[in-house]
């Protein structure tokens, strides 16, 4: 009995270095998580004190709006000295989940009407949202176009490594609509959760073609080539923007929305490849 006990304790000792290392990793991961949380906390604290048209307005926007909204935000800050625009970009459904869970957003710009409706259903929207941009799909291929893609029908050619969005996300439901309208059945090698993942597979050269938004092709620059196709008009994504109910900076939020829907915003969005609703 005694022998068994000592033997067991030896076995445990043998595992201890591994256990210690694992615990260390958990600690490191925890610290990294804390570090990542700091800017958001700082933003929340900064948005606490705000007299009119000064202070921080927090804008949650769909990932595809990153470059446009970054440009509009600096225009806004220049037009209203003393204000800061804090931008948070993610998938629209992620952002809705965050706002519903109490994230301190003042403005929400969605990549589709469905997610805006979710926020409205949760009674978290002040007033009606305004549609400010549209986006359509485009075929993205590597610059050398190894599979010789020219039309939407070419995507269905056997052997073409096509990557699309999964039907559960907005770009994927757009893909399904276009597919139905074109009467072509696609056989993708991967259905990604976000348009960024699709684009990544094309820019890295793994995929022969991907279906992304025209604005994503524009953002990717010369890393991909965009091929427009007429069937894309069957799935036009509309981008709504609205102010979040209970915003502590309602005036700032309204001013930001006006800039996005106004002349300046239209100009920036058109440059990025967005259409007008």
């Amino acid at each position, binding site marked *: 009995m005694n*022998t068994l006990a000592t*033997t067991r304790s030896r076995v445990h*000792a043998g*595992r201890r270095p591994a256990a210690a*290392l694992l615990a260390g990793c958990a600690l490191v991961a925890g610290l990294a998580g804390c570090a990542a949380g700091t800017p958001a906390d700082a933003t929340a604290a900064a948005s606490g004190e705000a007299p009119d048209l000064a202070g921080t307005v927090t804008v949650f926007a769909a990932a595809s709006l990153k470059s446009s909204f970054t440009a509009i935000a600096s225009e806004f800050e220049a037009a209203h000295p003393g204000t800061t625009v804090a931008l948070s970009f993610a998938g629209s459904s992620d952002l809705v989940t965050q706002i519903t869970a109490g994230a301190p957003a003042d403005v929400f710009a969605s990549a589709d009407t469905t997610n805006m409706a979710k926020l409205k259903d949760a009674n978290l929207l002040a007033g009606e949202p305004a549609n400010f941009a549209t986006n359509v799909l485009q075929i993205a291929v590597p610059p050398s176009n190894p599979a010789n893609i020219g039309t939407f029908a070419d995507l269905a050619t056997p052997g073409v490594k096509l990557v699309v969005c*999964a039907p559960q996300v907005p770009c994927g439901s757009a893909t399904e609509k276009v597919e139905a309208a074109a009467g072509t059945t696609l056989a993708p090698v991967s*259905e*990604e*959760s976000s348009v960024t993942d699709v684009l990544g597979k094309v820019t890295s050269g*793994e995929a022969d073609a991907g279906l992304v938004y025209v604005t994503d092709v524009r953002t990717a620059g010369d890393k991909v080539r965009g091929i427009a196709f007429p069937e894309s008009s069957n799935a036009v994504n509309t981008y709504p923007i609205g102010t979040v109910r209970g915003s502590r900076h309602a005036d700032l939020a309204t001013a930001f929305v006006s800039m996005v829907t106004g002349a300046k915003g239209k100009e920036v969005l058109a440059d990025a490849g967005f259409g007008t609703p």
Partner: protein
Amino acid sequence: MTRRRQGPYSGIPAWVYLIAAAGALFVLLPLVAIIAKVNWPQFLPLITSESSVTALGLSLRTSAASTALCIILGVPLALVLARGSFPGQRLLRALVLLPLVLPPVVGGIALLYTFGRQGLLGSTLDVLGIRIAFSTTAVILAQTFVALPFLVVSLEGALRTAGYKYEAVAATLGARPTTVLRRVTLPLVLPGLASGAVLSFARSLGEFGATLTFAGSLEGVTRTLPLEIYLQRESDADAAVALSLVLVAVAAAVVGLAYGTSRPPRMPRAAQDEPERIPA
């Protein structure tokens, strides 16, 4: 590192228990939150949907394959690191353990530029007619990449603790190195190997970032359970929560298996009196 022997005196002040309880709660509470959030009336239909079952099956198959690969590659690696002596040994150990602390997405990018079509080995593999990207093989490679250090660390620790005595005796009795390895060393460290393998399996099962970056996501081919959860979350939160609970249950079973049932090795009291060597 000093070895603490079990005895009647524990020497732990009461306040340590208090903080330890807070630590345990910190880990357990999120799991309780998942259980509380599950839509129980719909639980069975949600987890037995075709896509869920396909994803779970793929996860179990690929994790089993990557665990096997971890054993094949990891046992020699641990032996060399624990018993061998060559220049750059410490550096090699640090590098092999790197995936433990690397963000999985970084692992995925690294694998992409190694085995991908445009990658370091990609063109060579392409000539041989091997296409790894977007295949189940890519999933297994991603899982092996992140899980291998778990096996190496566990086994190396066991090897160091076991010491050399029995091997030395076997060698003086005329056993060749391979015989010593097969008949003495491996049986001695079998519990360490087993717990390492189970940990590797658990890590493979949870692999997400590297798979998403490197293998893509297609039902039945590359969409493992974590990827399915990530996707379901976009449209069906209830399904995502239900599947999360399945993964928690599988992970709990696996960890329980590793730490609950590992038996002491058959050979008793090996190297009991040799002082433990501190890993460098």
